[in-house]
């Protein structure tokens, strides 16, 4: 985590007191029961902070009346935008669609079920004012989760932490505030297999964490189960790192090396001592040699496959937090995000 968090001293505090417009992106799949309370809670919190805002609802192909409820809320509360996806694309894509349409100087991503309390946004705006580009909310405790779920979640983070190239902070969901700069960076990553936690971590930028207590669901039931968690973990690990590929490559090479050694051992043993079973040394050496060669070839192919995988994502090479131009470049638009 230390890798990801830059010390606060390196940020330039913003001159504005608050974002001119705060977009609240909220992907929703079958959340008709939660939405009205969500809008009321957000409105109350924003009024308390004196913060101009818009809500960007993303209807992820809901099969209930979610879209109708959104449209009704949009009529009664003006500051609501609706992105109606053509079918169910999954939460990660829905979040991206919302970010694409968000117009604010800062964007908050949060769930509709009020498990992410809107009051936390005040602390996030404060972080924005201090100059941070990403202010993410970390759960203080996983109240309401079973012991098994807590254990598997912590195991997942431990694995990601150990093998990941970029650190994904633990107990941090999608609930976060991002500056316009960070949002543009996230939107520049257009890969189809989207592990948002990995993407948020990959883009970097000065980040700060805010602690909060996760509330129980306000309405509706959770769509969470273990098969989903398993697939999400596989998705997360394989889309953000090449570690499984690397591990199996080295595992394959080690096995091939051991096989060659064993083959050599059998050849020497037969030459010097002979073998009671005719044909056995030949068989063993052939099996070891072929198996070893196959593993080496697979390892090499795997190495290239990893490269192809990284290239097909077509990510930008880097993001700059800030560019300080020389005098000759000064007429160029300093301070804007440059995508490498």
């Amino acid at each position, binding site marked *: 985590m230390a890798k990801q968090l830059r010390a606060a001293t390196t940020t330039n505090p913003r001159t504005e007191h608050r974002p001119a417009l705060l977009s609240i992106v909220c992907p929703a799949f079958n959340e008709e029961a939660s939405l009205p309370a969500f809008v009321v809670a957000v409105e109350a919190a924003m009024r308390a902070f004196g913060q101009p805002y818009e809500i960007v609802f993303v209807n992820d192909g809901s*099969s209930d009346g979610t879209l109708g409820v959104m449209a009704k809320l949009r009529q009664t509360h003006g500051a609501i935008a609706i992105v109606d996806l053509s079918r169910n694309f999954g939460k990660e894509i829905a979040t991206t669609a919302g970010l694409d349409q968000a117009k604010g100087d800062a964007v908050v991503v949060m769930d509709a079920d009020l498990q992410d309390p809107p009051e936390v946004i005040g602390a996030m705006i404060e972080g924005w004012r201090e100059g941070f580009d990403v202010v993410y909310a970390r759960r203080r405790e996983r109240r309401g989760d079973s012991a098994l779920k807590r254990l598997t979640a912590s195991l997942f983070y431990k694995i990601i932490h150990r093998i990941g190239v970029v650190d994904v902070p633990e107990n941090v969901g999608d609930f976060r505030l991002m500056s316009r700069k960070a949002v543009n960076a996230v939107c520049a990553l257009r890969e189809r297999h989207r592990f948002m936690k990995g993407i948020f971590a990959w883009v970097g930028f000065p980040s700060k964490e805010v602690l909060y207590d996760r509330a129980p669901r306000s309405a509706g039931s959770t769509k969470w189960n273990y098969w989903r968690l398993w697939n999400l973990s596989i998705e997360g690990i394989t889309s953000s790192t090449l570690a499984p590929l690397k591990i199996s490559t080295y595992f394959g090479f080690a096995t091939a090396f051991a096989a060659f050694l064993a083959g050599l051992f059998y050849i020497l043993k037969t030459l010097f001592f002979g073998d009671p079973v005719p044909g056995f040394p030949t068989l063993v050496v052939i099996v070891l040699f072929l198996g070893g060669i196959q593993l080496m070839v*697979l390892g090499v192919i795997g190495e290239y*496959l990893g490269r192809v995988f990284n290239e097909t994502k077509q990510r930008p090479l880097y993001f700059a937090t800030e560019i300080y131009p020389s005098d000759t470049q000064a007429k160029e638009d300093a301070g804007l995000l*440059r995508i490498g």
Partner: protein
Amino acid sequence: MSAELIRDDAPPPMRREALRPALLSIVCPAFNQAENLTAFHSTVTAVMKTAQQPFEVVFVNDGSTDATLRIMRALQAQHGNTTIVDLSRNFGKEIAMSAGLDHARGEAVVLIDADLQHPPQTIVQMIEGWRDGFDIIYGVRSDRQRDGWLRRMTAAVFYRLMGRIGRVPIPENAGDFRLLSRKAVDAIRSMREHHRFMKGVFAWVGFPARAVAYDVAPRAAGVSKFNFWKLWNFSIEGLTSHTLAPLKASTYVGLAVAFLALVYGAFVVGETLIMGNPVPGYPTLVTLMLFLGGVQLIVLGVMGEYLGRVFNETKSRPLYFTNEVSFGDSGVASGVEHRDNIGDRRQPT
């Protein structure tokens, strides 16, 4: 999965204000259809005249070896509203349809076969669906009685399989005969992958969809170019371009077999250590083969997982499509109109 609608529980879409599309493009891919084209064109013209629907016909000549192109030319000379896309060789029906969609200018587009097995009269019902606000109105064959039982059974198995394993279900018995709104056409055109399984593409783009039943007429002329080898290849194409299921399945089978092999290897080692083995060398050989085979399968499984991801990335599909984006009236968001519903735009740098 119900066969009726792709979004069968979703609330009905908003009705369109227009009574009919300002222009309806009728896209008709044709491969060696010289005998059918004239009858097809006159039937379509008659139906459209009755429905008072302005239309254009977009013929795609998919490298025909007979007089298809000449007849298209003759029809074009007689009727001004005919476009011909003459492909450089035979590219197959899926690509020919895409070429037709690229050159259709209508507010709505109908995809239809030239052999009159898709009755043009059904287009009238499809236009009704368009007016009701649906973006995709697909024809469903009301009876497949003329097909042999074997063909019917294999088709049923195929759809069941696709419905079970695909993330995006494909409606059963829906062919290529369908009406697409401009929004849906633009979405489909933005998907440029080379291995095109059109039924999968139609389902993947989403949008509110409705089914319209139609009776298959017997072929007007010529023979069907369909056979079981083609159906088999078509199924493989569909399965592999629409889903990663075969890859996932072989990964899990491989991992399971590797696990069993390693367990059995350990068992053989243990047995030999404790009880000995009457055949010298046998335990060594078996253990080695099991171990090496197991490790190979594990490595292949991990590679398969990455290959699946690479495959999905190389298709370069947009991330999502939207039915509609409606903006709030606060701040800078107000008054901004976005007509683009394709989520593949990179942010301006």
